[in-house]
């Protein structure tokens, strides 16, 4: 599903975000990217979401070299994957329902279908019934679950998450990870960046360790 072939990302200024990274994630896998902050986890996810482009090497998603995609093809690529962010990036002015429905509105889905799917997604993260709440009236854990609902509402085959539990206490983190595991069990491929190793010991799953922009180890 995802393959990195000798990928290097050099930022303006000469700093290497990633150096010659090789990585393969099979469809249906749950993979955790670990390593210290600055190790290149975020850069790797940015390359998958085409927020950045590789300096050298190839990033293949579903067999397509996305590093070569023209700018006008980026929106379609982003719609094909779900993204979860550490700061969840919810729109504070909009209700939970509106936030979760945004990817479907962008995709141009009919209204009735949107309502059905949004409820299904909120149900998956246990927030059905909070549709008309504004994000700030929710707890941080609930906000992150709304972010996850938004990421999976369009039923992407691939979900990437950057430190999704970074702002949460251990109990809430575990809760979020449980949500991810459940989604993985229904077939969503997942690549989750986290530095919370204690949490991973509880959750399990394959790990890829990054250090100074290189893959330095991992399991599986």
């Amino acid at each position, binding site marked *: 599903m995802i393959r990195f072939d000798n990928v290097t990302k050099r930022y303006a200024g000469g700093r290497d975000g990633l150096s010659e990274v090789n990585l393969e994630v099979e469809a249906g896998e749950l993979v955790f990217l670990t390593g210290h902050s600055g190790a290149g986890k*975020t850069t790797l996810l940015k390359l998958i979401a085409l*927020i950045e482009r590789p300096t050298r090497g190839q990033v293949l998603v579903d067999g397509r070299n996305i590093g070569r995609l023209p700018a006008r093809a980026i*929106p379609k690529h982003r719609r094909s994957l779900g993204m979860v962010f550490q700061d969840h990036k919810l729109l504070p002015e909009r209700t939970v329902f509106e936030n979760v429905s945004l990817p479907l509105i*962008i995709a*141009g889905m009919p209204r009735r279908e949107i309502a059905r799917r949004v409820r299904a997604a909120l149900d998956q993260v246990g927030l059905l019934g909070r549709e008309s709440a504004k994000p700030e009236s929710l707890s941080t854990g609930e906000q992150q679950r709304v972010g996850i609902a938004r990421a999976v509402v369009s039923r992407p085959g691939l979900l990437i998450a950057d430190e999704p539990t970074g702002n949460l206490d251990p109990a809430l983190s575990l809760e979020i990870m449980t949500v991810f595991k459940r989604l993985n069990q229904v077939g969503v491929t997942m690549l989750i960046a986290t530095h919370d190793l204690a949490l991973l010991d509880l959750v399990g799953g394959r790990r890829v360790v990054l250090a100074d922009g290189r893959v330095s180890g991992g399991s599986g």
Partner: protein
Amino acid sequence: MRQWLTRHAQNCVASVGRLVAHPGGTLLTVAVIGVSLALPAGLNILVRNGEALAGGWESVRDFSVYLQPGAELANAQALVNELENVVDIQSVELVTADAALKELRDSGGFAGVLDGLEKNPLPHTLVVRPKAEVPAANLERLAAELGKRDIVDQVRLDTDWVARLNALLDLTRRGIWLAAGLLVGAVVVIVGNTIRLDIENQRAEIEVAKLLGATDAFVRRPFLYAGFWYGLVGGLFALAVVAGGLALLGGPVARLSMLYGGSFRLVGLDGTSSLAVVGGGLLAGLAGAWVAVARHLAAIQPKV
């Protein structure tokens, strides 16, 4: 196709909702656009009324043909008959020498002088009234032609005044185009700036939408609709301003005209001009939004 239409309809309605949600700012923008557009529209009305007023002074275009002293009355009558058949001429009045003398005597003051004369020094005169739509150049040609005839002593054509008025109206008309161009340009800038601020205010939303895979067209659409509405409502506001102005001036103008013994009434904007005001506003609004969107939207890229 249906999906596309639905999406546009939703955007269209949603953009109205957003504008209504901030009534103060929206009203201010609309008012500025309205006043900008009302100015050239008002000037246009001024010229149209000037034209109508100038049309009322038709007699100014009459010209006098003085015949040679001693010309036979029969010959004068023959010339009258001939001129009455000329296409550009509406009517010809013959003022005989005797009639002219009588008029002069009746008007008083000259009675003693005139009585001292042995014979009538006045010639027969023709007063020619051209048709209303005849251009000044034709009148001058006609006058020159008449002047060459043996029987004619002199032709007095007073087209200078008409020519001047027409030149003035022409100048004003051109001035209006210029003003209209500048003010429409101002509307483009106003809307552009308003949309720029809207974009700035919604930066977070735009970033998130782009992150979630929104195309440029998707992000652009609500702003273009906002520009469309600003322009449209601004144009309608301008029509309202003009109508209000006319209502205020209509009474006094009618009274003034009555005092001068006329029946002049103010002319308002006709359908085409009204359409031009609203259409101009609408296009200027769209153009302003387009400029703002083209300049500022691409610069917003999601940061993670």
